[in-house]
């Protein structure tokens, strides 16, 4: 069922359909202009910019400490990783060494954020395919992470917990206990996810063989994160260019060779287990010490170019800073995983039906503010 044969006696013609900007399956304001023949897609032309805020331009007038807070508004489900990328870039450029305690807490927070993001993705993925129950299960568990975040960070979504030089404040006394409670709970809940959806024959038929990405295409189009690992490409920034405490933990990079939507689905399901493994290795060993080091009130980076990549829930997130020695960057570029992942959508959805496009988009896990910036 990879491509559908359209050679019939009947005369047909191509026409255009607007999908979005307000389409429930787009998870945001993404407009796709589809060229279709019957229900078969011939071309997908994404029309972006409905929530373009020009954050890169705003960064050129803000200070580095302010920029951190803007990054929450990119991929709001990976807000912690986005914050961390800017902080790491500034710290490396200034030569600031953060305490071990900060590195451990950042890594735990990263993985909690990744879990919360993947849970939400799993919930809406089921919903896109037509299984409404998954959403309730996912939100039941995601709520526990949000509560942990609320207690320590003070926010549930846009966290702003990282600052250049460390963390905004120390972890809450309950943090370690509650994280362990959550892991204990989720170890039991994750198999439930698999029983509910992963083995479902209707679900599998909707995804297997749909939206195939070859290894070569994934690299050439800059696809990263779980979407690329579903094609068997090793691209985990946590392994290749380790940052924070990722060099101190043992975890497997989940690789599946298949390349279709179901493989991308399975990568994320297995990644949730790895995230729990990482958290378990760190949560009892958080070293004592300070939670931040003193930095100047107004940070000025030395003249030069700085790039920092981190692994967000969607793939490789990068911050590129060109500094001219002033309080704001001369130019700042966010390399967002969603933008590159979107560029392959046209190629992989040609020949499929419109309903398959919904499945493909879910399996690529788009967050629109991340694409639009």
């Amino acid at each position, binding site marked *: 069922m990879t491509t559908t044969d359209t050679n019939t006696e009947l005369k047909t013609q191509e026409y255009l359909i607007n999908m979005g900007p307000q389409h429930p399956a787009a998870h945001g304001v993404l407009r796709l202009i589809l060229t279709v023949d019957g229900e078969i897609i011939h071309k997908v032309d994404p029309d972006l910019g409905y929530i373009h805020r020009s954050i890169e331009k705003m960064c050129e007038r803000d200070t580095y400490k302010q920029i951190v807070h803007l990054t929450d508004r990119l991929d709001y489900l990976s807000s912690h990783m986005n914050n961390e990328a800017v902080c790491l870039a500034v710290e490396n450029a200034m030569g600031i060494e953060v305490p071990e305690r900060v590195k451990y807490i950042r890594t735990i927070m990263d993985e909690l954020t990744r879990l919360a993001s993947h849970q939400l993705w799993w919930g809406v993925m089921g919903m896109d395919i037509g299984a409404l129950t998954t959403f309730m299960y996912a939100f039941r568990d995601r709520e526990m992470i949000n509560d942990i975040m609320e207690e320590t960070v003070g926010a549930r979504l846009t966290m702003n917990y990282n600052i250049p030089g460390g963390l905004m404040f120390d972890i809450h006394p309950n943090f370690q206990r509650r994280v362990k409670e959550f892991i204990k709970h989720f170890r039991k809940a994750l198999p439930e996810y698999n029983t509910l959806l992963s083995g479902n024959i209707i679900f599998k038929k909707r995804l297997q063989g749909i939206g195939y990405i070859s290894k070569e295409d994934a690299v050439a189009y800059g696809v990263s994160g779980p979407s690329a690992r579903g094609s068997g490409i090793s691209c985990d920034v946590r392994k290749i260019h380790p940052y924070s405490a990722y060099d101190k933990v043992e975890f497997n990079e989940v690789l599946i060779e298949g390349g279709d939507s179901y493989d991308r689905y399975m990568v994320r399901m297995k990644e949730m287990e790895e995230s729990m493994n990482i958290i378990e290795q760190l949560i009892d060993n958080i070293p004592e010490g300070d939670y931040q080091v003193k930095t100047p009130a107004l940070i000025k980076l030395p003249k030069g170019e700085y790039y920092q990549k981190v692994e967000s829930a969607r793939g490789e997130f990068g911050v*590129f800073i060109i500094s001219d020695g002033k309080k704001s960057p*001369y*130019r700042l570029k966010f*390399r967002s995983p969603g*933008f*590159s992942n979107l*560029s392959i959508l046209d190629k992989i959805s040609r020949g499929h039906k419109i309903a398959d496009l919904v499945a493909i988009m879910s399996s690529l896990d788009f967050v629109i503010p991340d694409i639009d910036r």
Partner: protein
Amino acid sequence: MTRTELQSFLSSKMEGLEFGEETTQYLTVTAPKEKLRELMFLLKDTEELAFDYMFSLTAVDWFPKSLGVIYHLESTKFRHILVVHVNTGNREDDVTIDTVSDIYPTAHFHEREAYDLMGIIFDGHSDLRRLFLTDDWVGHPLRKDYVDEANMIVK
């Protein structure tokens, strides 16, 4: 390849390349814009280099001189990273650079973004339209001399 090996390999293969200072994070090379495509083919197709993954493409306004594009390349095989700088001519009237979107398909979207927000014209691009802004938008917002009193807060 290590940084020094990469530098000596590239300078032996091609003339006219300018390398950045030793202190930069990654090896940086500035290419004349006529040689951009030749360099990109060399980087992608040479077996020892194998730069197959373009992870970032940034457009910069080097006000008041020129516009520029910065390509970040990585090899998924060897994991070495190279930064390529290319500059246009005078930013007022000569803002054309050859496209690399046929060499690196990911650049297709990135170049459309650079055209939209910075106004760089990519010669040979198959579909150079605005990506974020509407077709009738005047100007290119990421340029340093862009003025929009209604929508921009300037401190």
